[in-house]
């Protein structure tokens, strides 16, 4: 397992990196944390002839938390984000998702932006970003553009980032008082998710749900937003029967992924269970009464 021959460039300015990517087109790949790209190169499944190393570029990493939003530079290491107390306080859902991403060793090098741009169908961060209504900034030869998360993930390993462009920043609007949950089923701790669910749920003063997000991962090429389930909940007070009914409305047809670790049938059978549990946890955290102790 040795990579095919390649040239290596490590620019220090973003515009140089973009120029290189535009010039070499599909022959070039950007290198962020390398936790996905490098193993693929070693196995010769990916054979870029030019590697554009992004790690020397100043200004692409860092976390800024203010009252309006959290901004995360794309090159921020997953470990740094997980350790940032202000990030965990502002976005506990993201912190929970990060805790499921790989292992300490991979999080030390892996980046937030790298995971999102790679868009593995089983990855956790795309699911969390969609649930959090994140907006992703893409920089290219013609400047910057911003794409909301639910239009960023097009399919398995496919995003809105075009050749010659780079994901450079993620902006997540601040969350108010709400409940959240991120749950995952994997064959082992730290593995890619077989099914993951990110849920946010807000209760108005009268105890009725006035905002909710339910996103499923690991079931299709891109994360799946469960709008029918969300609609079932809006305006209602969450009780265990309602939550189960809402979980029953996730779109079974949208669940397509199939592997020898978990068949499509298994994912279709178990996704409602995971969503029900995540809704129960989020609703309880939002202050809904009488939901009992949620299953682990």
């Amino acid at each position, binding site marked *: 397992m040795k990579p095919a021959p390649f040239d290596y460039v490590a620019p220090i300015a973003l515009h140089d990196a973009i120029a290189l990517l535009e010039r070499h087109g599909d022959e070039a790949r950007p290198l962020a944390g390398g936790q996905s790209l490098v193993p693929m190169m070693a196995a*010769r499944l990916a054979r870029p002839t030019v590697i554009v190393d992004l790690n020397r570029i100043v200004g692409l990493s860092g976390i800024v938390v203010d009252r309006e939003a959290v901004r995360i530079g794309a090159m921020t290491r997953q470990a740094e984000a997980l350790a940032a107390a202000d990030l965990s306080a502002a976005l506990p859902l993201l912190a929970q998702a990060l805790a499921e991403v790989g292992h300490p060793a991979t999080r030390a090098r892996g980046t937030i932006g790298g995971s999102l741009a790679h868009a593995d169908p089983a990855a956790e961060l795309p699911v969390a970003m969609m649930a959090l209504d994140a907006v992703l900034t893409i920089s290219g030869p013609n400047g910057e553009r911003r794409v909301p998360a639910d239009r960023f993930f097009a399919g398995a390993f496919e995003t809105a980032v075009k050749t010659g462009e780079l994901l450079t920043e993620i902006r997540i609007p601040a969350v108010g008082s709400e409940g959240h949950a991120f749950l995952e089923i994997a064959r082992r*701790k730290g593995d890619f998710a077989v099914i993951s669910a990110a849920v946010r749920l807000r209760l108005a003063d009268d105890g009725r749900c006035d905002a909710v997000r339910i996103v499923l991962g690991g079931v299709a090429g891109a994360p799946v937003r469960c709008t029918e389930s969300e609609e079932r909940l809006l305006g209602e007070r969450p009780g265990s029967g309602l939550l189960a009914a809402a979980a029953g409305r996730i779109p079974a047809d949208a669940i397509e992924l199939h592997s020898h670790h978990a068949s499509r049938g*298994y994912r279709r059978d178990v996704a409602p*269970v995971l969503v029900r549990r995540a809704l129960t946890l989020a609703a309880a955290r939002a202050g809904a009464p009488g939901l009992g102790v949620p299953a682990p």
Partner: protein
Amino acid sequence: MIGARIPRVEDARFLRGEGRYVADIRVPFAVEAHLIRSPHAHARLRAIDIRAAMALPGVEAIVTGEDLPADLPPIPCRIPTHGDLEPFLQFPLARAVVRYVGEPVAVIVARDRATAEDAADSLVVDYEPLPAVASADAARAAGAPQLFAAGNIAAEWDFDIGKVDAALAAAAAVVRETFTVQRHTGVPLETRGLLAAYDRARGVLEIHGPTKVPHTNRATLADMLRMPHSEIRMIEPDVGGSFGVRGEFYPEDFLIPWLALRLRRPVRWIEDRVEHFAAINHSRESRFEVTAAADASGRLLAFDVRLVSDLGAYIRTHGAVVPSHASASFPGPYRIRNYRVQATAVLTNKTPSGTLRAPGMFEANFARERAIDLLAGKLGIDPLEVRRRNLIGPGEMPWFVGTESVRRPTVFDSGDFPDIFARTVAELGWDKAPAPAPEGAIRRGRGVALLVEPSALGPFEGGRVEIDADGNVEVVTGATSQGQGHETTLAQVVAEVLRVPIERIRVRHGDTALIPHGGGTYASRAAVMAGASLFEAAQKVRAKAIRAAAEKLEVAETDLELRDGRIEVTGVPGRGLALGAIARMLSPGNPELLRPPKETLIADNEGLAAVAYVRAVPSGTSVFAVHAAEVAVDIETGQIKVERYVVGCDVGRALNPAIVEGQIVGGVVQGIGGTLLEELVYDEFGQLQSGTLADYLLPSVHEVPAITALVFERVRSPTNPLGVKGVGEVGPSGVAAAIGNAVAQALGGGARISALPITPERVLSAAAKRGQP
């Protein structure tokens, strides 16, 4: 010293990263070999065009099957069991046909691995794909493609003991179930590697990297190269695990040394993980159709078994040992007088297989212990009670099962099974704590498995002990080490006899130049066989030292005692000789030896040293073990959490209890992998789907509970002077059985947990089918 819980002496260098593995060894002018492997499961190999690949700068040579000697024999099967396996042996490089994905077809030798892989892109191999059979059933179907002119069945055999049909007819309860065990393998942390160099000056072909059975491998290589054994030296470096799969004689074990001779340069080959999954011996894939019967009191009356074992595309060095052991050991530690098994070893277009820790035992224990729980359920008798009523008692030892494997009868040499069972059950405390109630979606269950693990098989072992002029002890054993801690336990044996501190003892292993004959390490034999040979050698050294000291000090031998590295006159402190001084006295160069009597021939010329070889115990030693698991099953997701695991076993005598416990705990972890996670998945075209560590799931610390190893020294083995039994394979052997029983109990309703691995999907399926026939 024996029985002391000392830390392992080898660990200091491993923990500091100072181990010396084959990839750490560098010799000048070495070139790197890279094997080109078939991407087809079954194909005619028409032609290989090497011209474009050879043109790449840095490529030294490319060899194919046509470059090997025309009369080169195939790699032999070294362990006879059943049938004539000659037609199914593998040549180091494929000739007209390839029979599994991963089969070597060529070797590229280049300045480094990257260059060799670049050259591989330009190698043109002309395959004509053929239909493949990827399962034992497909291989046995009418009209199936045949792997060999002799067909797809490697061997068939049977045992028929007692009167099975009559017992089945008279039974109060009969269960019939089919149990399947998946293909998996050992996955050592370090992949294989070889560094071969021919020293033209000394006329020695030196090979670093062999392990497990280097003397046997040297003999095989010498035969295939038509070289004298004395011109080949195999040297075991530090080795990162084996579990049975590493160290057998593979195609690379011929090719790399052969290339070193042919190219007249040192040749290095370091296996990468992806090729390892397709190249290393696979194991365990089998199906047991079991009929089990008992009377109304729970007495087991009969087992009737149909066993089909999938051995992959070729017969390798271990032949059909795995299903042979499974068929011979199926009855387990119970008083079974009626047992019938029909076994078939089938060849398919998949990687060939061999032994893996607890070979055949892991599989047979799963099928048998699950069947016993099914019987207990049918009879309404507690599963522990059924076992208690059928366990062979101490007065019935030695127990002859009535079967044989590797041409030796299956015999349990010693043991008090009921006592060990009772003590382990007492430790579990299940009678005091009621079965836990459901907790939301969580169901908890408990399961046990009882088994006898054979160990210490194999013909002989040798060892040498020498004390030098400084009183340091050098120990050379014919055994090898892949991480079991032999440098420590064997030193403890010698320290016990010679009364020398461990720090002054160094154990050398796995080097064919240091001891002329060696048995090797497999079948958990080192503690018994290497231990016994070194015990004898150390006794000889001790006797020699006392005799020499008695002569020198002019006292009777009975007036002397051995203490702290000295031989002293009892009761007269200060009047004695250090062992080092005695070694100096006995060395051939010692002028005193040249004084009268004036004989030219120096008798006893080895100094203070001795060699001892011990013969095998024909049926080995037998370790009785109890495995117990407590699990929590989420019946909505199918996920299983093992919450507690206990193993109780009688090892006869523990040389180092900490090492014994470590062996058991590590083995249980490996067994959990095989029970819940690991699988080598092939599609119907014979393509390996789970050939990387991303897809082949190994357990980590998150997937295992606290594991308790209860090590009993209840009945010493009568087969060796130390009374030791080999324990290395007890850990994995009962895990699938115990966890399978626990999961079935958690689900209740006669849930059918009959297929490994026990995946969440299988749990949900079993839960849904509860109550159905």
